[in-house]
């Protein structure tokens, strides 16, 4: 794959787009900070995996997708859901397990679904989403639709058989799959060197004869440029592309993780590359004022407050509906 070339844009459009990228990353950050708070308050239960630190990946990648493209994500998918366009209201109601949630409250944090944005989970089996993404892309190819299926997964999934089977099949059949590997260096608590004989994950993808490049997953603009380039090639019918986003999660694996496996200095050093701070610096250098930045934070704070109020006032699915939708209702 050659180096991505940024699409030239008029300066105003570029500024506005940069502000959108910031807004989207801030939405994810503040949404999840609120989730952590609500988890401690007992409003959100089950497992809660925060994406904080990795926002540039989902936000950058989603810019390259069209409305009728598909997304398959992992159990750490709040960021993808928000960036894809699922409303904060529907997502927060899902976190609560309420009927107005995007999965009707049945899935919770790990199982976000949304037909309107073609968001196919929220898969809590590591690697389990890859075969499904291959099939969605196969359906598009068979029906000659120029769509892309974006499949997000972590470095942990690369150790699963389904990763290798899926990359092989997608490359063999030249399917329109965008494989986005979020390499945050840890499969739960196991660092990549302790799990992978080859830690250059892009090299594994290239072994299946697909273009594969690492990109700085802490830089939203770099992710966007790389994924746009990949998506264009996929849309031209050139087969799957693998983008390895090198990133880091700032918070624990889940709310139950005491983080015994990594050094605080390592975490601090990655925090110095915070994707939001990096992008804010870029905006400031381009002349965006503190007032504009404060307005973004205010808007987001309002949205978060509204989504919590929405989730609080939403209702529970009646127990009589327990068995509903195990099977599709028949006429």
């Amino acid at each position, binding site marked *: 794959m050659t180096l991505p070339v940024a699409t030239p844009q008029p300066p105003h459009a570029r500024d506005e787009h940069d502000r959108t990228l910031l807004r989207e990353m801030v939405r994810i950050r503040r949404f999840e900070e609120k989730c952590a708070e609500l988890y401690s308050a007992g409003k959100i239960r089950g497992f809660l995996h925060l994406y904080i630190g990795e926002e540039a990946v989902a936000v950058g990648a989603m810019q390259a997708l069209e409305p009728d493209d598909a997304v398959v994500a992992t159990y750490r998918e709040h960021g993808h859901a928000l960036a894809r366009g699922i409303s904060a209201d529907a997502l927060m109601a899902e976190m609560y397990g309420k009927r107005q949630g995007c999965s009707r409250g*049945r899935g919770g944090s790990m199982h976000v*679904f949304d037909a309107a944005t073609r968001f196919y989970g929220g898969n809590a089996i590591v690697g389990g989403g890859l*075969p*499904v993404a291959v*099939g*969605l892309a196969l*359906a598009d190819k068979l029906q000659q639709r120029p769509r892309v299926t974006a499949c997000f997964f972590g470095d942990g999934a690369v150790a699963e058989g389904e990763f290798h089977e899926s990359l092989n099949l997608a490359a063999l059949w030249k399917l329109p799959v965008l494989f986005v590997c979020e390499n945050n260096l840890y499969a739960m608590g196991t660092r990549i060197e302790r799990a992978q004989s080859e830690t250059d994950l892009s090299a594994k993808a290239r072994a299946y004869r697909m273009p594969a490049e690492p990109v700085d997953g802490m830089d939203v603009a770099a992710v966007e440029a790389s994924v746009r380039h990949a998506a264009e090639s996929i849309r031209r019918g050139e087969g799957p592309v693998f983008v390895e986003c090198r990133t880091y999660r700032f918070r624990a694996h889940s709310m139950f993780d005491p983080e015994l496996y990594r050094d605080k200095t390592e975490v601090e050093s990655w925090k110095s590359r915070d994707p939001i701070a990096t992008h804010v610096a870029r905006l400031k250098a381009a002349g965006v004022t503190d007032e504009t930045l404060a307005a973004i934070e205010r808007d987001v704070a309002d949205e978060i407050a509204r989504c919590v109020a929405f989730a609080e006032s939403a209702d529970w699915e009646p127990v009589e509906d327990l068995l509903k939708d195990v099977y599709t209702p028949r006429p």
Partner: protein
Amino acid sequence: MKTTYREAVRSALHEALARDPRVFLMGEDVGRYGGTYAVSKGLLAEFGPERIRDTPLSESTFVGAGIGAALGGMRPIVEVMTVNFSLLALDQIVNNAATLRHMSGGQFSIPLVIRMATGAGRQLAAQHAHSLEGWYAHIPGLRIVTPATLEDARGMLWTALQDPDPVLIFEHQTLYNMEGTLENGGPVDLDRAAIRRPGKDVTLVTYGATLWKSLEASETLARDGIDVEVIDLRTLRPLDMKTIIGSVQKTRRVAIVDEGWKSGSLSAEIAARIVESAFYDLDAPIVRVCTAEVPIPYPKHLEDAALPQPHSIAAAVRQVLARE
């Protein structure tokens, strides 16, 4: 029309491919090889490689791709060579196919058909011959069907393709060569068990290849004046308990024949449900004939000894009648 079970399945596949452009077949060696059991022979030449897709040996991914393609608007038929191999795809079947509709709050249906060979009797030993369909029948979200007759081999596929949810079709590998006359070549329902032999003394509940062993046992018993009613379950999930209970209330005695093992099995489930709803209709304890609790052995005499056979089925019926 004279035909075989294999030809009936092939003709069902042919019809589905011809009638619905969304239908395609994928699996290991379904194309150029013609299918392990020669079921799909000739389909590649007629329908081409886009619709008859040979896959790598990647059960989990080609079954998962079937799920994705179904979500994407296709009507995939995925062939898994044998039920033992389907264990490599268990994640996709149990964690995705069976759950996505409920877990998404009813937003997505998965109209996927998975066909696989099951069962013993061809000396294939312990990794090609187990009967695990009862396991799958444990899972809410799946429909499990077991065609035993030519009519069902021919008709169940089309009905399964009309189902909005995942349907697993288990074809017993000893049935492919079964010959006979196909009376009805059209679609069949997947909802009701069938009474294959009406009788008044004992109810024999079975499915798949043991249907034929049960019918053979029933003819032997008839010569001794024992009139057996044989029920072919046809669908293992959901179970048609109405037909079973109706028969039990008539005969008041039940034997269950299942090529699966006894422990934690479908036969145990059926027995429990009969006891739950018709205990006072029973005149004798329920008897079960199942595969011996061993991995299926290779040598013929041991394989035969491990499986339900007409003589062991007949003995069970005599036991339930207390006429041993």
